[in-house]
């Protein structure tokens, strides 16, 4: 059986790759994808801890995280489509109406 630490290392790496992607990429869709990566990293540690602590609540939690992630993606992509319609770009450096 692979120990918990193995899964935690994978989860930490995935989370940090997601954070890095949000910070360095400027394409709004890629930023949304990196947010998905971070949610998935959290899910992986939920399931790993669920096995380690022999408690299925972690997997129930992952189910709800997946529902929230699906809702978030649909709303986020709708916002991106609307942004593209108004600005003809989804480059987040060029969309700065709120910057003042």
């Amino acid at each position, binding site marked *: 059986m692979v120990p918990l630490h193995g899964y935690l290392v994978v989860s930490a790496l995935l989370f940090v790759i997601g954070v890095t992607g949000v910070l360095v990429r400027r394409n709004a869709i*890629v930023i949304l994808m990196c947010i998905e990566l971070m949610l998935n990293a959290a899910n992986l540690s939920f399931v790993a801890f669920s096995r380690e602590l022999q408690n299925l609540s972690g997997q129930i939690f992952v189910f709800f995280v997946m529902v929230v992630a699906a809702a978030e993606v649909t709303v986020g992509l709708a916002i991106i489509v609307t942004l593209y319609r108004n600005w003809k770009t*989804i480059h987040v450096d060029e969309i700065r109406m709120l910057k003042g």
Partner: protein
Amino acid sequence: MELFLFVIFSLLTVGSAAAVVWHPHPVKSALFLILSFFSMGGLYLLLQAEFIALMQVLVYAGAVMVLFLFVIMLLNLKPRGEDRTAFKVRIRWAGPLALLFVGGVLTAMTGALARVAPAGAQGPEWVVAQGGNIRALGRLLFTRGLLPFEVTSILLLVAVVGVMVLAKKERR
């Protein structure tokens, strides 16, 4: 054997996640993300979470990524040269910081590990006695998690209505 599969799946997951960030073309980023989600489903199988593994492949690698690819192709995005040079400057700073952050996250996680409660009662034998992972999860979901489950439907309804309002063309 399990260790071998774990190494293969985790290398695939982390490697293709890095490719998502690295690749300049959004369509290829999305395809790498699908590969990453699939191999994460393999990791869930190794953790004996069959239901979550199925959901991972159906919801994430299926529905969510189809949505991503659909929007990318709808907007017809192409990589731009000036983005790439700015990206290379940023990654030079972000790379070492990210490694530092991995260290921080791991320290926090091992700190949490020191405080974990003793093992619960829902071990593999209990799950088998319940009739499998999916049956055990379903029973839990519809007893202890019933209220959150119903609230979820409201969340999905709000998301559907919100998307319709957002994506509707404004008439002037």
